[in-house]
């Protein structure tokens, strides 16, 4: 072998060795094409959705491991899933569901109406931490006349009943430990949950529907957003479910190897007033504050070109969305006029309880400087999320606060005068009740649009902006959800092209 060829061979051997190192560097021990690696900041606290499991378990399990009678699709519509059909009595009080046949749990047991009954009852149980528990207060009884039929009777009409059912996971009634194991009917079963690190899902051979696109999906959990971005940059993960910091985006936005999707989230950043206490019991004062804040500038400074301005509590994926951004326009002159009308020509002072985590401290500083321009002095009181919960939510001991509200269809909280923000407009309360008692979704939508308009008119809170839902994925990945409503993240269609 002459010298140049020997050098080339040596070089090749060295680069092969390095390539071996690089591919060995991935935490993926199986072949690359059959596994999709997902990166997320939201590790489940436990595996149950009635034990306060947090958003992590919804992200990993909802629709993937557990299924409901209905599902909330990525566009915000509600579609039947385990329910083959359903009928509603004329008075709207009796719902009869027929279950899909041939559905089995991961343990092999066939799905019956008894499982559906037990699953709904788990949400209603005394120790249940389900977010939907209060919505099911109208359930009067659940009957199971045969294995394939469930009959639910309500005390009063509830147009949201079907939608609320999309949050109820159908669980094997015989399953004993829902917090650390699972027995659902979804396209994936739980592989291994390695606490602090990853949770793997494996395709379920006996799935009743179409087989999932990828055999194995692994959620890799990070506590640090930079570490998560780095994992995507080094191909250790293929997709990041939700980017929480726009700073990380520049390295992906102009890179052909990645696709950045800007979807609609349901997370609203809100300046919440305690509407019970002075001066925020005065509508003019609230409207004055709304008009003093340049929300467009705020959104841009926090999220760059991403995110949406909303003029009310309602995101575009809710059926009763309408553009109300001009009800309380940015107009400092109008703001000063409103303050003068309310008797605060010289301004006033208030304390803003600010959760200590992003983005609230930055938002608080922005609000403070904007309000200073119209003569209002803000004192920022930074508190932990724990303290927020105790002081603001439970004790309602605050003047104003910042908070993100993550759920869809949550405008209805403005109909509850006991809710922490204390907004009390009997007309709105009546409209929310009326919407829930509607016979048709059109009626419901019409009533809730009136609610949106009224709370915007009253400036019940300042809806600063709607978070973007940014998903960054390797460009060869297809089939992932871009909106990710309520932290759900359906993985069964994700595949490499």
């Amino acid at each position: 072998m002459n010298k140049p060829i020997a050098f080339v061979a040596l070089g090749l051997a060295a680069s092969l060795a390095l390539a071996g190192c690089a591919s060995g560097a991935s935490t993926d021990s199986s072949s690359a094409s059959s596994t999709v690696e997902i990166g997320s900041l939201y590790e489940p606290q436990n595996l149950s959705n009635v034990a306060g499991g947090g958003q992590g378990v919804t992200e990993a399990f909802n629709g993937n491991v557990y299924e409901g009678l209905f599902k909330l699709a990525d566009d915000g519509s509600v579609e039947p899933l385990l329910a083959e059909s359903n009928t509603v009595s004329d008075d709207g009080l009796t719902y009869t569901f027929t279950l899909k046949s041939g559905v089995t749990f991961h343990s092999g047991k066939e799905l019956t109406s008894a499982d559906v009954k037990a699953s709904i009852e788990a949400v209603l149980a005394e120790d249940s931490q389900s977010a939907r528990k209060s919505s099911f207060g109208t359930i009067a009884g659940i009957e199971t006349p045969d294995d394939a039929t469930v009959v639910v009777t309500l005390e009063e009409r509830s147009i949201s009943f079907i939608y609320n059912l999309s949050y109820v996971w159908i669980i094997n009634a015989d399953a004993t430990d829902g917090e650390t194991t699972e027995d659902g009917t979804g396209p994936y079963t739980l592989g291994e949950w390695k606490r602090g690190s990853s949770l793997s899902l494996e395709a379920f051979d006996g799935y009743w529907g179409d087989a999932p696109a990828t055999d194995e999906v692994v959620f890799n959990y990070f506590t640090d957003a930079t570490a998560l971005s780095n994992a995507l940059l080094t191909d250790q993960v293929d997709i990041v479910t939700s980017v929480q910091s726009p700073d990380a985006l520049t390295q992906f936005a102009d890179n052909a190897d990645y696709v950045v999707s800007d979807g609609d989230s349901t997370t609203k950043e809100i300046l919440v007033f305690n509407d019970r206490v002075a001066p925020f019991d005065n509508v003019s004062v609230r409207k004055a504050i709304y008009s003093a804040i340049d929300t467009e500038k705020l959104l841009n400074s926090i999220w760059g070109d991403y995110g949406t301005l909303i003029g009310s509590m309602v995101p575009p994926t809710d059926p009763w969305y309408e553009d109300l951004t001009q009800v309380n326009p940015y107009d400092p002159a109008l703001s000063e006029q409103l303050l003068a009308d309310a008797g605060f020509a010289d301004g006033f002072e208030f304390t803003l309880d600010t959760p200590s985590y992003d983005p609230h401290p930055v938002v608080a500083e922005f609000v403070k400087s904007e309000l200073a321009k119209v003569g209002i002095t803000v004192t920022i009181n930074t508190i932990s999320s724990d303290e927020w919960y105790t002081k603001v939510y439970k004790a309602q001991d605050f003047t104003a606060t910042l908070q993100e509200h993550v759920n869809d269809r949550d405008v209805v909280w403005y109909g509850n005068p006991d809710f922490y923000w204390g907004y009390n407009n009997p007309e709105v309360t009546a409209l929310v009740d009326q919407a829930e008692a509607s016979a048709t979704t059109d009626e419901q939508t019409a009533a809730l649009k009136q609610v949106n308009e009224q709370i915007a008119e009253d400036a019940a809170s300042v809806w600063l902006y709607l978070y973007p839902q940014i998903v960054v994925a390797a460009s060869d990945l297809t089939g992932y959800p871009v909106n990710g409503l309520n932290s759900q993240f359906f993985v069964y269609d994700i595949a490499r092209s």
Partner: protein
Amino acid sequence: MTVYLLRRSAFLVVSFLIAMVAIFVLLRLLPGDPSNALLSVTATPEQIAAAQAQVGADRPVLEQFGDWFAQLARFDLGESFISSLPVGPEIAARLVVTVPLTLLAFALALVISLVAGFVAAVKSDRWYGILISGLSQLGVAVPVFWVGILLVGVFAIQLRLLPSSGFPRDDWADPAEALLSLTLPVITVAIVMSASLTRYVRSATLDVLGSDYLRSARAQGSGFVEALWRHGLRNGAVPVISILGIELATTFLGAVVVESVFGLPGLGSMLLRAIQQHDYPNIQGVLFVSTLVVLVIGFLADIAQRLVDPRLRTSLSGNR
């Protein structure tokens, strides 16, 4: 020496018991309610009460303490409030990452600092001796996460030689893969750790070099290396051993930062999440194990010092 060992062991047990009480009491004195971690912004008063019952926050503190101590006596660290999983096995799973990380970083730092510190002392008038001293000064000032980010930027993102984060799902089933994912974290910790260790080794060596006994030994005809080996090493080792103990314990406790930067499922990241969630059983469990480790390291360092230096043995054990 036997009496000293007995006395030192009794001291170890008593400090451990005091630490356990302190951990329990301090956690309860912290503001905040562990049940909050289970609740959402739509929780009803009924759900708030249920969450408090679930985490046992509705029971008297003394009763909770008694339960915990009874559990510990049975070598049971209890169950997490949040996940309902037993704490002990989870800590064991995390130690599989944290212990190798700490020991490898410590060993690497030891090698670097012994060589660098010795060279910096013996060659304190040469440019490389001065450079080592300067670098070690700089290293002490640099935060560990910054070194980590820098190394990831170069070796993981630019050169693609090493993984940026994570640990194999099957732990040490493939040792090469596990070692590969620990490489950057180990180097990160070792760099920061060796900076301060180098300074100690350097000053201990300088002390020895300037000592009378070394001069006497050489005057009696010993060569430089022989004199250093027979007299210098032992004398220089005493102060270094106590610093080593402290450094080892600090690295073990300081794993939080480096584990977060590298997404490692170790004890540090477990503690971080447990604190965020007010998960008392998990916090207590991690602190229990780390306190034990730190106290035992201190104990072993003390013993090692006495084995190395007979003078300490006699002065502290009452001439027995």
